[in-house]
């Protein structure tokens, strides 16, 4: 069989308007999930280092379970499994956001733990010795420094979660990959369209990297 490779630029470019309709979903699932995941991460990251065992142990369990199982399985469980428990359907978009939230939340918990534990003990001692409460010490002294150290790892997690949303094409949410698949089903231009899909992911992740680099540079002035 004679296969002549030909890249069809026309097909690639004309797919873009359709692919762009997937971007809002990709962004909504990524950043919605990450925002909730960040809140989960702060809560469980701090519980994880609590001296109180009955606070610490559930946090460890949560982190290990959601870090140790694939995000694809998590979203399938939420989308197909959970309805059997709650007796009603779960919206695909909600399932996607929830999956990113619980999955990134587990990783961010560990990032928060590492960030907080990396602050020298003397910082806490100095703030307590001035009469600050434990809460004030954390809020005004420990957290601002810990957060700055967490930025690179948080950026990493953000990029991973954005790419993870591509798996959610399997539950039919109209994100980037799903839109690509639909387009290919009618045009058969898989090479061109998947390349465009990849480029669009790269555009999102590079923008995030750049934004974080700026934030980090601004933050580093304070170190």
């Amino acid at each position: 069989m004679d296969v002549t490779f030909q890249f069809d630029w026309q097909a690639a470019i004309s797919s873009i308007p359709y692919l762009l309709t997937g971007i809002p979903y990709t962004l909504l699932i990524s950043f919605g999930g990450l925002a909730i995941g960040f809140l989960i991460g702060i809560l469980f990251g701090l519980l994880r280092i609590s001296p109180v065992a009955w606070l610490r142990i559930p946090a460890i369990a949560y982190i290990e379970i959601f870090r140790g199982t694939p995000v694809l399985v998590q979203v399938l469980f939420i989308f197909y499994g959970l309805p059997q428990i709650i007796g009603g359907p779960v919206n695909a978009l909600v399932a996607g956001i929830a999956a990113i939230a619980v999955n990134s939340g587990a990783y961010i918990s560990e990032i928060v733990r590492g960030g907080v534990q990396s602050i020298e003990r003397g910082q806490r001692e100095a703030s307590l010795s001035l009469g600050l409460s434990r809460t004030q010490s954390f809020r005004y002294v420990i957290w601002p420094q810990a957060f700055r150290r967490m930025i690179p790892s948080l950026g990493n997690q953000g990029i991973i979660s954005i790419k993870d949303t591509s798996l959610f094409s399997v539950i039919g949410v109209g994100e980037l990959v799903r839109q690509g698949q639909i387009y290919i089903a009618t045009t058969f231009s898989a090479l061109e369209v998947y390349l465009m899909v990849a480029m669009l992911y790269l555009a999102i992740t590079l923008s995030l990297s750049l934004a974080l680099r700026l934030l980090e540079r601004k933050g580093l002035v304070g170190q």
Partner: protein
Amino acid sequence: MTDIKTEPGAELIVRMEKVNKFFGSLHVLQDIELSVTHGEVVVIIGASGSGKSTLIRCINGLEEFQHGHIEVDSNELLPNGKSSKSLQTIRTEVGMVFQQFNLFPHLSVRDNVTLAPIKVRGTSEADAIENADRLLEQVNIADQADKLPGQLSGGQQQRVALARALAMEPRLMLFDEPTSALDPEMIGEVLDAMRELAKAGMTMMIVTHEMGFAREVADRVIYIHQGQIVEQGKPEDVFDNPQNERTQSFLGRVLKH
């Protein structure tokens, strides 16, 4: 042990009674009995690991102890981290300067000094800033107020740490080896600031290896060996005529050079 009778009527600010502390099986503080009167400057000397830092860290509750009790300005600290009032109440009255300065690196020098007065005492920002600038002036570092701690030398940082502690208007100041992390040429400026403070009548408990400074500034010198107060007295008595052979041997080692 030389018994130091405090002057009758002198107001006690610290009273430690039979304080014992263990790190696991290590007995780091043994039956510590120690009273400090208002305005007194007490210098604690001893070898590394003798428990002298641990002793002063018990006074503001940074270390727990297992037996005995400590009164600080009529508040009571009890074994295993318990206290009559909250530890926070005690700590607002007791300032501390650390070996490693422990300035807050994300805050400007001025903000380091105003943080606790604003958040703990509820001082207005304007008053806190005015007070901070006065204190920074006092420790001779007013021109650095807008810088970050990382941009300052060690000696400057330690003077900021002193101003930061003084901003809470403490009734007692604890110093945990305040010059041990400094380059030799910067030790003098920190000791000068402490000397001024002593002259102004501040009650101070100082853990240090600076024997010349101790002799000059201390009202009382305490020698600690393996968690026990072995000898205490006026600096000239302890330095020139130590009674205990352990004190003699320690001073023989540190005063030789």
